[in-house]
C-alpha cells in the first residue's frame, strides 16, 4: 500500500504550481468582478503544460495520465482561484477519448477546447437522466435525442462560452441514452454566457435546436462516468482553495492580538481552524478513495466521487466563512482576498447538482448496495 504521491505526481504538482504562480490569479478574480474582460486567459498555459491532453491516450498525442493526476492539477488551480477551463474540458475529453472521437489530437493539444453538458445519471429515487434548467428547477429532463438531432437546454454548463466542441448527452424517446460530439459553431447551437458571483468561473446556458454531431461509442455507464469525474475535479479544486484559506487564517491568527493575546491562542479560534484542517483531511482522504477506485474498483467510483465532492464543498464553505470570521470586520471588505474565496465557495457548492445532490447520491449508492432500494 502506498498512497503517497509518486515522484511523477510531485513533479506534475510542482509544475502546475509554478505555471500558475506566474499569473496574478487572485488579483484577477477581484478585477473580473467589475470588468469581466480582466479575467486572464489561462488556456494557453493549460495547453503548454499538457493539461488539455492529460487524460487522452498517448497514441492521440495525450499524456495518458490517470484521473487522480487530473485532480492534482485541479488542487493547484483551486489554491490560487485560477479560472482554467478544465472542469469542462477534462470530463469532455474523457468521453471523447473513450468514445472514439475523430479528432482527439486537437483535443489533446487544446487547439480544440471541449466541454460537456452536465447530465445527471439516474439514481435509485430519480430513475432518469436529468439536467439543470435556468431559473431554479434542478431536475429538468435531459436533452432530447431524435434520430441524430439534439434539442433542449442545459443550464450552468461549465466553460461553455467559447468552447469548440460540446459533448451532449441525449435521451431518445425509448429512454436510451447516447453521447454526441457536437461542433459548437453550427446553427442549432446557442450559448448564452453567464457568470454568477464568482467571476473566475465561466458558465453558459446551452440551447440545442436540432443540432447534430458524431455519436460516441459509449454505453450508459461510460457516459455516466463524466458526471462523477467532474465531481472529483470540483472536489480537488475545492481542497486546494481550502488549503489557501487555512494558511491565510492561521497566519492572521498568529499576528492579530485582542485582550493582550494573539487570537490564535483562544480556543474558539484554534478549534475552528483545527476543524478546517479536519475537513480538509477528510476531503483529501475521500479524493484518494476516488482516485483509487477509479483505477481499481470502478463500481465504487460513483460513491467515492460523490462523497469527495460533498465533503470538499462543505469544507470549502466552512473554510471560507472561517477565513472571513478570523479576520473580523476586515475580512468582509472588498479589498481583502477573503471574499474572493467566499464567492468561490458559494458558487461551487451549487454547481453540478450541488453538494446536497452529491450527499443524497452517497446515501443512494449505499442503500442500493444494502438492497434497500
Amino acid at each position, binding site marked *: 500500500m502506498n498512497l503517497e504521491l509518486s515522484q511523477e505526481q510531485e513533479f506534475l504538482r510542482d509544475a502546475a504550481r509554478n505555471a500558475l504562480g506566474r499569473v496574478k490569479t487572485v488579483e484577477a478574480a477581484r478585477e473580473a*468582478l*467589475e470588468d469581466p474582460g480582466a479575467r486572464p486567459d489561462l488556456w494557453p498555459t493549460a495547453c503548454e503544460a499538457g493539461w488539455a491532453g492529460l487524460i487522452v491516450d498517448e497514441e492521440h498525442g495525450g499524456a495518458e495520465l490517470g484521473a487522480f493526476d487530473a485532480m492534482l492539477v485541479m488542487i493547484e488551480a483551486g489554491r490560487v482561484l485560477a479560472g482554467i477551463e478544465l472542469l469542462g474540458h477534462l470530463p469532455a475529453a474523457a468521453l471523447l477519448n473513450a468514445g472514439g472521437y475523430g479528432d482527439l489530437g486537437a483535443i489533446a493539444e487544446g487547439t480544440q477546447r471541449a466541454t460537456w453538458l452536465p447530465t445527471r445519471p439516474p439514481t435509485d429515487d430519480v430513475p432518469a437522466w436529468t439536467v*439543470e434548467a*435556468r*431559473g*431554479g*428547477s*434542478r*431536475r429538468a429532463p435531459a436533452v432530447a435525442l431524435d434520430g441524430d438531432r439534439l434539442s433542449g437546454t442545459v*443550464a*450552468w454548463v461549465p466553460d461553455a462560452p467559447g468552447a469548440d466542441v460540446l459533448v451532449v448527452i441525449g435521451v431518445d424517446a425509448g429512454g436510451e441514452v447516447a453521447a454526441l460530439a457536437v461542433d459548437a459553431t453550427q446553427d442549432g447551437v446557442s450559448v448564452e454566457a453567464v457568470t*454568477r*458571483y464568482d467571476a473566475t468561473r465561466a*458558465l453558459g446556458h446551452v440551447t440545442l435546436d436540432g443540432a447534430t454531431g458524431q455519436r460516441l461509442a459509449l454505453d450508459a455507464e461510460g457516459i455516466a462516468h463524466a458526471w462523477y469525474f467532474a465531481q472529483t475535479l470540483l472536489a480537488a479544486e475545492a481542497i486546494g482553495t481550502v488549503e489557501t484559506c487555512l494558511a491565510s487564517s492561521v497566519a492572521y491568527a*498568529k*499576528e*492579530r*492580538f*485582542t*485582550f*493582550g*493575546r*494573539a487570537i490564535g491562542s*483562544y480556543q*474558539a*479560534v484554534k478549534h475552528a481552524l483545527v476543524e478546517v484542517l479536519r475537513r480538509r483531511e477528510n476531503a483529501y482522504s475521500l479524493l484518494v478513495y476516488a482516485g483509487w477506485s477509479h483505477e481499481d474498483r470502478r463500481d465504487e467510483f460513483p460513491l467515492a466521487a460523490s462523497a469527495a465532492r460533498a465533503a470538499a464543498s462543505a469544507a470549502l464553505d466552512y473554510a471560507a*466563512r472561517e477565513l*472571513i*470570521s478570523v479576520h*473580523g*470586520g*476586515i*475580512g*468582509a*471588505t*472588498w*479589498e481583502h482576498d477573503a*471574499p474572493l474565496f*467566499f*464567492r468561490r465557495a*458559494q*458558487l461551487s*457548492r*451549487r*454547481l453540478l447538482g*450541488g453538494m*446536497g445532490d452529491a450527499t443524497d447520491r452517497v446515501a443512494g449508492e449505499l442503500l442500493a448496495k444494502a438492497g434497500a432500494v
Partner: protein
Amino acid sequence: MDLNDTPEQAAYRVRVAAWLHEHRDEAPALDLPEEELVPAQRAWQRRLAENGMAGVTWPEEFGGQGLGPIESVIVGQEIAKARVPGILDVIGVGMLGPTIIAHGTQEQKGRYLGPMLHADEVWCQLFSEPAAGSDLAAVQCRARQEDDGSWRLTGQKVWTTNAQFSAHGLLLARTDADVPKHKGLTMFILPMDAEGVTIRGLRQISGEAEFNEVFLDDVRVEADAVVGGPGNGWGTALTTLMFERLTIGSGAEGLGYRPERFVELVARDEHASADPEVRRRLGEISIELLAVRFGGYRLLSMLQQGTIPGPEAGLAKVTTVSAAIEAFDLVADVLGPDALDEAGETAYGISFLPGLKSAGGTEEILRNTIGERVLGLPPEPRLDKGIPFSELRAKEREAVAK
C-alpha cells in the same frame, strides 16, 4: 401574560397609525440615488420628530416624548406596517443622543440634541479601529492636549456608518498611554468637517460601501468637545454600548430577517414545499427567528418593568445572523446558481451577512461575557490587566516578530 396593548397604548397606536396613513405619501422612496435619498430622509425624520415619532423615549426637555420603550416599539411597528422608512439617524437618536443626555454638559445638550433629533445634523459613532474591534478599550487614536486646552487628534477609525453625510461624530481616543488600557480614554465630539478629517468608503463583499474609514491627521477640537470628562471615556462608551444592545436586542425583527420572508423565497421553487429535507431546514430556521421575535417581546416587557437587560440580550443578534445565513444558504441551495445573481436579494444577503456577523463585537467575545457575567463562570486568563497600554503594545509587537 399579556402581549396586548393596554387601552392607553391602543389609543396611542391608533393616533400614530392615523398620522402615518395620512402622511405616508411624504415618505421618501428608498430606491432613490444616495444624493437624493439622504435629503429626503432628513426631511422625513424631521416630520416624524415634529409629530412625536422620533426620540419617543427622550426626555421632553430635549424634544422627546418622555414615553416608555413600549411606545417606542409601537411607533416602530406602525412604521413597518405603513411600509414607510423610519428615521435616518438611528445611531444618533438611538445611541449617541442618549449618551450625551447621560454624560454631556448642559451646553452640549442644548447645542446638539435638537439638531440631531430633527436630522439637521446627522451623527456617526467613531469607536472601532482596525486593531480595536471586540477589544474596544485597545483604541490607539491619540488625543494630545495643547496648552490652550484644545486637543489634537490623530488616528484611524473604521466601520463608521453614515460618516459621509454626518455633521458630528462621537469619538473615543486615548489621552494617556501610561495607564492600563481602560483608564486612559476620553470621549470627544468631532465636527466631521474639521481640517484633517478624511472619510473613505469601505466596500463590502457585495461591492457596496456600507461603512467608512475615517482618518484623523492632527485634527484640532476645542476643550469643550470632551464628553464625560478626560479619562472617563470608557465609562461613557459603556453607556453607548448599552443603548446599542437595547437597539439591537429589542429590534432584531428590525434587521428584516422575518421567517415569513424566507418561507416566501423558498416557496418560489415549486417542489421545495414538498421536500422533507427543505422543510426540516426551513422549520429549524423559522424556529430560531420566531424565538428571537418573542425574545424581543420578553425584553421589552422587562424594560417596561424597569429592568435593564444583561449581556445575554446580545444573543438575539447572534441567533438572527446565524439563522439568516442558514436561510439564504437554503434559498440558494433550492434555487441553484440563479439565486447568486448579484442583483437579487439572496445574493445580497449572502454577501452582507458575514460582515454583520462581527459588527458590534464578535460572537466569541459575547459568549465569553455572558459566560462570565451571567453564568458566573471563571474568566479567561487576561494578560492585559493592570499593564500600561504602551507596554502592552510593545509586548504584542515583540510576540509577532518572534
